[in-house]
């Protein structure tokens, strides 16, 4: 990327003290710094992880002991029409809502970075939806706003009545199978607060010296944005992308609260994790739910691996 090249050139002016002996081995220090994580991995993370893998090869109803059934659960995965529906719902959601949410978050982070009066207030207000997030109260509100007689439809009716050109139909936005998923996607964009805050933190992290150096070289604002802000922000963009993807694949709460846990209407919001939850807890097929979880893990891991691989070509690290 040209921008990165430019930035590298800029950085090379800083002298050669940066060269780190990459062969250096910090094994001992690493043990110290990783100790809590390692203990956590062994004590708290690994056990349940392995247990769930084991359970995925069993018929387990939570109430009595699991029976090993070999690959039965995994075979069943490929014959389950609701699972295909769940995959379809989840993939559409991930593909649409992750880019939309990230774009909104980045755009607003840039806007709210600096140079405006009342930034703290704007930031707080824009973060509010993420605070309310998954509360029960919000579920009620959504059903009211997007309901057949809700605010959205009232606004649309008014809009349709004041001008003849664009007529938008009114629907039950969360209760009709054709629209419920789309509504959830929009709702997700609305909670862009978390990635926005991370972007803001990332923007603060860019050393001012780069901008100053560029100013001396006579760079315009736009130039600085392209040549410094964006490349320096790529690790954070990458982070948000990876984590939003991992989270989006596991989306649960939105659909759970809006559809009362059913994934309805007609399975149109049956997210993968919601279906997994239904199987595990409502239907007491925890063995099958565990197999579903491991299939999901493989999917997410593959996506993440691709992400990491591609990141070599666009993410710029300062080390």
């Amino acid at each position, binding site marked *: 990327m040209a921008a990165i090249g430019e930035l590298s050139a800029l950085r090379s002016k800083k002298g050669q003290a940066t060269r780190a002996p990459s062969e250096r081995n910090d094994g001992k220090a690493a043990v110290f710094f990783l*100790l*809590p994580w*390692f*203990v956590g991995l*062994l*004590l*708290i993370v*690994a*056990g*349940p*992880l*392995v*247990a769930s893998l*084991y*359970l995925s090869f*069993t018929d*387990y*109803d*939570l*109430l*009595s*002991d*699991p029976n090993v059934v070999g690959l039965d659960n995994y075979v069943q995965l490929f014959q389950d029409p609701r699972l295909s529906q769940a995959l379809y719902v989840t993939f559409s959601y991930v593909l649409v809502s992750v880019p939309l949410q990230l774009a909104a978050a980045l755009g607003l982070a840039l806007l709210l970075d600096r140079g405006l009066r009342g930034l703290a207030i704007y930031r707080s207000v824009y973060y509010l939806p993420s605070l309310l997030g998954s509360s029960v109260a919000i579920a009620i509100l959504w*059903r009211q706003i997007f*309901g*057949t*007689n809700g605010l959205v439809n009232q606004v649309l009716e008014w809009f349709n009545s004041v001008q003849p050109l664009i007529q938008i139909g009114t*629907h*039950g936005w*969360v*209760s*009709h*199978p054709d629209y419920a998923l789309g509504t959830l996607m929009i709702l997700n964009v609305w909670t862009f607060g978390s990635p926005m805050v991370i972007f803001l933190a990332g923007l603060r992290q860019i050393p001012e010296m780069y901008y100053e150096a560029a100013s001396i070289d006579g760079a315009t604002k736009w130039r600085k944005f392209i040549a410094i802000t964006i490349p320096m922000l790529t690790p954070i963009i990458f982070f948000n992308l990876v984590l939003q993807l991992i989270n989006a694949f596991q989306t649960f709460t939105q659909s759970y609260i809006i*559809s*009362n*846990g*059913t994934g*309805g*209407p*007609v*399975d149109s919001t049956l997210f993968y994790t919601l279906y997994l939850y*239904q199987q595990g*807890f*409502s*239907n*007491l097929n*925890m063995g099958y739910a565990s197999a579903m979880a491991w299939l999901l893990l493989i999917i997410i891991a593959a996506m993440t691996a691709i992400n990491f691989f591609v990141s070599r070509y666009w993410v710029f690290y300062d080390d």
Partner: protein
Amino acid sequence: MTRTRIARGGMVRLAAVAAAGALVLAGCGQAENLPDDEPDGPDPVEDAEEAGAEGDGEEVTIRFSWWGSDTRHQMNQDLIDAFEDEYPHISVQPDYTDWGGYWDKLATQTAGGDTPDVLMQEERYLREYASRGVLANLNDYDIDTSAIDETLLGSGEFDGGLWGIATGGNVRAMIVDPQAFEDAGVQMPDDATWTWEEYAEITEQISASTPDGVYGTQEYGFIEPDLAIWLRQHGQNLWNEDGEIGFDAELMAQRWQMSLDLIESGAAPSASESLELAAGGPEQSLVATNNGAISMFWTNQLETLAGVSGRDLQLMRYPGESQFERTGAFFKPAMALSMSADSDHAEEAALFIDWMLNSQTAGEILLTDRGLPANLEVREAILDQLSDSEQQAADWITEVTPEIVDATPSPPTGAGEVASLLERLNEQVLFGQLDPLAAAEQFIEEASAITGD
């Protein structure tokens, strides 16, 4: 039936602990080196509690789990206090949450071998838990059931044991707003004789002669009780005594067609709106928001509806009670009390159950929180302490009780999953994705598969 209870959760525990445990040894030695190994400390409340328990060797603590909202939590706490007063050596530790969370928590605790000593059960999951050996056979304990309503008691008896005792009962009713009838200029029907055809006509008329957004009825088709009433009127049942599907696809399809027709004619709101109403519960129902003449609910929900709507509501029989072979109404067992098969203090747990069912004190605290009390003597004694709408519901139940032919056979294992299957197919029918007969056939096929294994 003896069960080896020791093994419960054994394999899971093994897997979880083997992986973690083997490594615990390796991890433990180094744990002191953690720079930040200072958790915020155990909670003082628990420490105090443990210390208190040690003071008296005789003292026994049992855990009691239930679902509900704040009014019930307060009531149950009063109940516990009263019980502890009477039996000072037993203390009861409450564990409560909302309906959805309750089942997740109960299943997890059971998997971990921590089933509460005394717990609330529901018809839908009772067999599920009982058949897996989680619940104790209450016949083995000294619990007096002589005053309990026969049909309600029967709902907890199967597989040669008594696995849960319903504490109350409700009847499904049409909850009617006479004001809405009056506004529409439509005569209230005689509910002893009205037919499904009259129901369709009347509700269509109401919708037609009221402003937009006000409807004759809140018909969201098919939730289990509505289907059950229709089937029973035709001498069939959702489940037969053997826990198999007990009805014909055609009959189910007819009922579905009726829902479609009501939506078509405008008597009931659109499919979308019907789903919204179904999700909203009693507080957001048509009758509660003064937007309709009829909503269907259980008798114990009249109190809530009357409160929210601010109107004088009435209870009516379902249509068709005198139209076909027999009546469809039934007494629904509510909130069964069960006991863990693992309880360390089974005698005390049984004592607590017995006391909740049979003591006047308990009856006076609970009133109709669990529906009309299953204990007939208690029911008699509390009638004059009820609020107006509770009184109204109780009177109505007394009125229709003679017409109730029999109990509904208790649903098989997997009934919870079948309920959501029904909901899903219902949505497909209402949105025109499946025709009623195909949906009915699919339901029978899938429901049989779910409950078959």
